[in-house]
């Protein structure tokens, strides 16, 4: 996605102009203009086709080369673990330039925020908002859980709040004990990355429902996960598949990396299956409602 060619950019820009206009009529016309009467192969970025065709992990390019490299290595490591353990077999990791790339085909986007990054353009925020509304999952990593104890314990402080402020993000709350993120593949008590100290935030459950994911939008699946455990560093591997970063020493270190991968896998499963594992809880009831009493396996 880095090498977006000129026609695509024009098309995307024209489409985004439509988002800015806001009303349905002109937007539809702009879409028509952006898409044109047909599609030539050059019009659509081949990487976009690949990203749409095969699930791929993607991270936001922050402009900080070190952070971007770690993010890429981390998502690569997580992709390998996914492929080894689950039916999800992601393609090559994508780096996303929010100002220029279309994120519509993505399901999950990892955003390691830092002080150095300049805020993306207003168009990028509109695109992100739209993508979140359509079911995207944005994972924001403030990478500061090691020092967060010295700072206010809130995701609303620091660079993350500066960068995320323009987004239409719902009220957040620490991950509840029964949240689907804790059981979308593995059963998890904590969500460690390179650090295992920070609070992880998800969309707050609406007060009026007892269910942690009672929101109507996108079946109540949280659109954002915000934490500071620097997960990419824990996931990162080099070309030969060896970890790039040390996590403490001895058995504990290996276990923390395993838990970090488990969190990463849960994260991806949450992005792809939503609250499927909350369903599963109800399957028994549903099967019973079908009129049969035998227990499901």
């Amino acid at each position: 996605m880095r090498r977006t060619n000129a026609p695509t950019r024009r098309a995307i820009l024209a489409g985004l102009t439509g988002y800015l206009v806001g009303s349905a009529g002109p937007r539809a016309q702009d879409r028509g203009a952006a898409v044109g009467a047909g599609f030539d192969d050059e019009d659509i970025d081949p990487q976009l086709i690949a990203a749409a065709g095969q699930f791929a992990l993607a991270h936001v390019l922050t402009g900080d080369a070190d952070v971007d490299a770690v993010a890429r290595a981390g998502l690569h490591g997580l992709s390998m673990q996914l492929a080894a353990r689950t039916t999800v077999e992601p393609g090559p990791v994508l780096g996303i330039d929010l100002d220029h790339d279309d994120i519509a085909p993505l399901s999950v986007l990892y955003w390691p925020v830092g002080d150095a990054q300049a805020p993306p353009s207003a168009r990028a925020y509109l695109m992100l908002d739209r993508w979140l509304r359509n079911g995207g999952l944005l994972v924001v990593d403030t990478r500061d859980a090691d020092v967060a104890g010295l700072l206010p314990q809130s995701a609303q402080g620091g660079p993350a709040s500066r960068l995320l402020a323009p987004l239409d993000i719902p009220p957040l709350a620490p991950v509840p004990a029964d949240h689907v993120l804790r059981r979308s593949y593995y059963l998890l008590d904590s969500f460690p990355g390179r650090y295992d100290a920070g609070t992880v935030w998800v969309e707050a459950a609406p007060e009026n429902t007892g269910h942690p994911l009672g929101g109507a939008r996108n079946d109540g699946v949280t659109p954002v996960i915000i934490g500071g455990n620097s997960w990419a560093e824990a996931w990162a591997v080099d070309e030969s598949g060896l970890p790039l970063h040390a996590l403490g020493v001895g058995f504990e270190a290996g276990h923390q990396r395993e838990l970090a991968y488990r969190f990463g896998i849960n994260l991806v499963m949450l992005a792809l299956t939503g609250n499927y594992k909350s369903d599963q809880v109800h399957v028994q009831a549903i099967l019973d409602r079908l009129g049969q009493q035998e227990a499901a396996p």
Partner: protein
Amino acid sequence: MSIGFAPLVPIPLIWAMVVIAVIVAGFALWRGLAGWALRGLALAVLAFGLAGPEWLRADRRALDDIVIILDDRSASQELGERKAQTDAALTHLEGRINAMPGMALRRVTLGDDPDGTRLAHALNRAIAAEPEARLAGIVLLSDGQIHDGDALPDTVPAPLHLLLSGEPDDWDRRLVIEEAPGYGLIGEAVEIILRVEDQGVVPPEVAGQAGLQVNIDGGAEGHVTIPTGVSFRLPVTPRHGGANVVSLRLDPPGGQPPQLTPRNDAAALTIMGVRDRLQVLLVSGEPHAGLRSWRNLLKSDASVDLIHFTILRPPEKFDGVPADELSLIAFPVDELFTRRIDDFDLIIFDRYRVRGILPPVYFDNIRRYVEQGGAVLVSSGPEAVGIEGLSMTPLGAILPARPTGGLIEEAFRPELSALGKRHPVTASLPGAGSDGAEPRWGPWLRLIEAEVRPGGQVVLEGLGKPLLILDRVGEGRVAQLMSDQVWLWGHDLAGGGPQRELLRRIAHWAMGEPELEEEALEIAIVAGDAGTMLHINRHTLADGVGPARITAPDGTAVEVTLTPDRPGLFTGQAPAPEDGLYRVEQDGLSRLVAVGPAAPREFEETVASPDLLAPLVEASGGGILHLADGLPELRRIRGGAAHGRGVAGPWLGLVERGAETVTGMRAQPLLPAAGWLIVLAALMLGAWLIEGRGRIWPAYRR
């Protein structure tokens, strides 16, 4: 004749004169005046004469008696020979009444009313319009079946005679719906409670039982034989959502003579089919970006119970994590695909890859499920081109498209095929460009090349290749989407597209929603300025349709040409002038609609009966006669019985009322003024003679 006064001077003056006369006469008596009586009398005559007494005489004329004839010309009076009977009776009565001196005839004709025969109202109005004192009698010509019996008066001021039309051996069979449910769960029987009622003299060869044809939505006829006169519970099962029209028609009973009318032998009921919650099984081969589109669609639908299974970990991968740290459960294949499969309304395979999890026997079972009326939707991804695709399983035999092995990964815009522009699943999808506008759907980026089996309906195409294929297998339905990227529409890639609407329509078509049927005949009843019209909508995939044949309640049929409205829809309309059941038939499709009540009130009860009017007739002293027994004579009566039987036949009495009217008044003075003078003078002279010396009256001599 009477006497009136026209005083020449004011009355008090006259009274004063009377007083003076009495005093003077009294004084004269006291003083012994011989002529006191004559003098007093003279004064009295003077006072009386001044009071102006006169004869008053009225001029009088006898009035005609009035007879009201009320003839019922409602629709039930058209049955059999009733009209001729009524006409003959009317002519006869009119002739007789016109021949009677001193008789006036008032005719009131009663027509049809939406509420039936409103005879009581007409009777009340007719009586109120005539003077009571002249009413000699009222004659009703009717079948006695009136619908406003509550409005009948307790009695009427003259004999009321009822001449009943109809034959003594009239009989009729009718269908009475006692109870019909308005709603019913799809697939679960509801009960219609009905009764077959025989009225009149039923020929013994047909009495006792009746044949009933039952038909739902113009489909195949069912037939039951039910006993007459008792409530019968008829189970009916709504097969689809929306209006299920149940038409019930009694077999023509035969018998001699035939029943009066078949118009009360049928009924059309509408039962709204409502679904219990739909059971949808979604089986995903792997988590992928489009999976949540399915979930969002199905979980936001309040009428769907979603049972979703995704293969999160294939059998060959194992990471050594203990089971109690995993949130995975085994795929309950036996539970789902053997024991409970028939409970599902729809099974969706989303990028399902055969991983050895489902043995072939289960796919056989799914095929049997479809052939017996189930629905399967397959959304294929890249796995479909390999040996793990569903087309390689026993299920492949019923899938309408078979992948050729080609996998196209490039941007393309899904387009409606020529068939798709007519097919209700895809026609009028927003943004399709089918209405002449520029298509504005976003692109999809992957297409599985496939060849379509005969019978498969390609409704969406990409790059000219089949993209969405619909087919029917046995009693079930199969839909196959040759791409897994409909979710790109939901993510608004380059504008996106109607993802939810498309998926919803595919799913609902698969489950047999009537509004998405390819071949459908819909009738709407529209009341307009030009009267009630039947609007005929014929949805079809064909290029043209033949005319629709409309059979009216009275059996007459007309043909209506259907004209193209938009692709896949032909429309037409026809007037529906009368209430009742209309049958619309077109190319083997048939629909029954009820305009107004299926049996107009006039035809609910048709056998002539005096029961409703008998109390009133009796109270008024009138008689009830059957026209079939012959025409009655009319007699003038002064009192006593108002009907009876004479030598020639029955007679009906008309009371002689003898009413008169005063046309003028004449006044004649009792005596002319000179007469009064002579009387006065004579009295005075008499008094004078008695009192004077002439002594005419010796007795008065002194």
